[in-house]
């Protein structure tokens, strides 16, 4: 059995019900697995939620966890993929003092080269937004850190898979 830990993105299609977050996170908690990031949103199917959960586990463990997730009554389907099999993005916001933007040329270059976007500017601070892979976001963080970051926040990973996820046929089969 493999015991090597790797990063997986779990994609879950569920009904949109109160309490399901608790039920799904309990599956990880019970096995003492730390969730790296979690995101829940609407999906391409009306009334169906899509979750992206990133965890570092072995593939054997991952398969068993997917089984436990799918077993939940309100889960329609669950999948897991490694980084190669998905296209994923994270998003982050930096709040930085405005005087730096005008006084320091270097910071302007960093913003330009990183393809970050200025969301708002006022007399006290400006807000920078950057979407991309985790490494890109982290690089920008490291570059801006020496100038002083007032606030920083990064979203959980959202991802789509390269393979087709056949969730609609499952639901169509039910209604047929």
């Amino acid at each position: 059995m493999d015991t090597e830990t790797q990063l997986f993105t779990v994609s879950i299609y569920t009904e949109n019900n109160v309490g399901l977050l608790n039920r799904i996170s309990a599956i990880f908690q019970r096995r003492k697995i730390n969730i790296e990031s979690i995101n829940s949103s609407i999906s391409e199917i009306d009334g169906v939620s899509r979750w992206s959960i990133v965890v570092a586990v072995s593939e054997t463990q991952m398969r068993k966890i997917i089984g436990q997730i799918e077993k939940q009554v309100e889960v329609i389907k669950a999948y897991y993929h490694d980084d190669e099999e998905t296209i994923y993005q994270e998003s982050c916001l930096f709040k930085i003092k405005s005087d730096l933007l005008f006084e320091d040329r270097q910071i302007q270059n960093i913003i330009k080269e990183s393809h970050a976007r200025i969301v708002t500017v006022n007399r006290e601070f400006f807000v920078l937004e950057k979407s991309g892979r985790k490494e890109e976001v982290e690089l920008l963080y490291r570059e801006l850190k020496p100038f002083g970051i007032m606030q920083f926040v990064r979203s959980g990973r959202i991802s789509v898979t390269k393979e087709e996820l056949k969730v609609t046929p499952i639901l169509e089969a039910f209604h047929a």
Partner: protein
Amino acid sequence: MEVKTIQNEQTTTSTTERITGSEAVVKCLLAEGVSIIYGYPGGAIMPVYDELYKYQDKLHHVLTRHEQGATHAAQGYARISGKVGVAIATSGPGATNLITGIADAQIDSTPMVCITGQVGSHLLGSDAFQETDIVGISTPVTKWNHQITKASEIPEVLAKAFYIAKSGRPGPVLIDITKDAQFEAFDFEYKKCTAIRSYIPVPPVDDSAIVAAAKLINEAKKPMIVWGQGVVLGEAEKELTAVIEKANIPSAWTILGASAIPTSHPLNIGMVGMHGNYAPNVLTNQCDVLIAIGMRFDDRVTGNLATYAKQAKVIHFEIDPSEIDKNVKADVAVLGNAKESLEKILPYLKRNEHPEWRQQFQDLYDIEFKKVINNDLNPTKEGLTMGEVLKEINIHSKGNAALVSDVGQHQMVACRYAEFNVTKSNITSGGLGTMGFALPAAIGAKMAAPDRDVVAIIGDGGYQMTIQELGTIFQTQVPVKIVVLNNDFLGMVRQWQELFFDRRYASTELVNPDFVTIAKGYHIEAKRVTKREELAASIEAMFAHEGAYFLEVCVEKEGNVFPMIPTGASVSEVRLE
């Protein structure tokens, strides 16, 4: 004070009527064919109790003495009848007291619906009196749960609750209903739930898996079956019998699979696992094809997984896809319910005899008989054994009683030595190992099967965990037979202390009360046996007595249960002494 037997047929109301949420709860239960529920009233569930009062000739409510007792009684009811057991309690402590029974039902796949009252919806989250987040608390131990804050949700949610509890791999469901939803009036209409789009209770049987499994079984020289509760829950007893008889496959069972096939059947080779029989444990590591049917390779069954049946091809018949490859890798997985799968595989199986292979089981049984069984059942030394008590029970039940055991040494002895002719006769807490299970579970079992003898076999430790349910027995006059095997110890823990902790008996010795006096305090006929000469007559008297009966048997204090697979050892390293 008589236990009413009410038969409620399942119905669907097509007309709409304006009623309160609490009356709707009762009407939903009636529509689901429920005739007995177990519970305990309190503030947040009082509107429902008020309706129960009005409907008492249609729906019998049994007042237990503790909410945990209500869940175990509902479990006992469910396990012997195959129907959904129902427990009801108030909010806060009433609800949290249900949790042990719910967790037990979850791990043992018992269909149960629990209904709890909740504070008014405007008070949710305010730390109101007797408010607790029971949906949050029960989430990890329920198959499904839901909170209702509007009366109009009641019919649909309760219909779903019963459907989910019973379908597929059964389990407990908890429905929490706020007090305002109980009072609210709405237009009631009930429709049974028959499907939920995100839920596939029974995966379809794949015919190619059936063919692959049949090929492995037909080619096997040393096949062995281990069946579990999936056979009982799936009502596949006949189909299993047909399969094992056609191919002459020695067949063993897990603790919860017991009684699916009569113990007297020549191909029934006994129990597997930590205190199971010698032959099926040892030969698990010699068979060439291991056929697991409706069982989940629990660690108490497999011992050390690294050395479990490594030489064998494994076929796993299973309703729950998440069990496949969870503990033991399956070479062929046959998803689906056991009844359908076994019915489908039967025509593909060749007739077979396996005489030499079967003889190996007989030879090992003879060793176990000489070293263990004979000493347990026919002891010559002083001190009553638990085994001889079981032997006497078998003589008087003729194998037709349902045995409800608690947890510990007496449970292992009961499961090892009980004779069963009838399925759904072994009711015990397997997965969770809940001490205190048996007394209330026996109450529920007897109410569900009033025509059968129901004998609770309990240790002196577990008995005192739910001893207050004697009050329920007295009040309802339910004629259960209670046998307490008293060794003044928490016997199983003491056995481990003896074997693995150099006899340091930390907190396992019990200074017990006079159990006979306690039973008599509840006006239950009671007797104590201390001598071998009195045993047979006492058990005969217990069976002959019409009402409830309490029998305390003082057994040897430091008896041990063997065979035993020590933790971490392989099944083939099972010890006989």
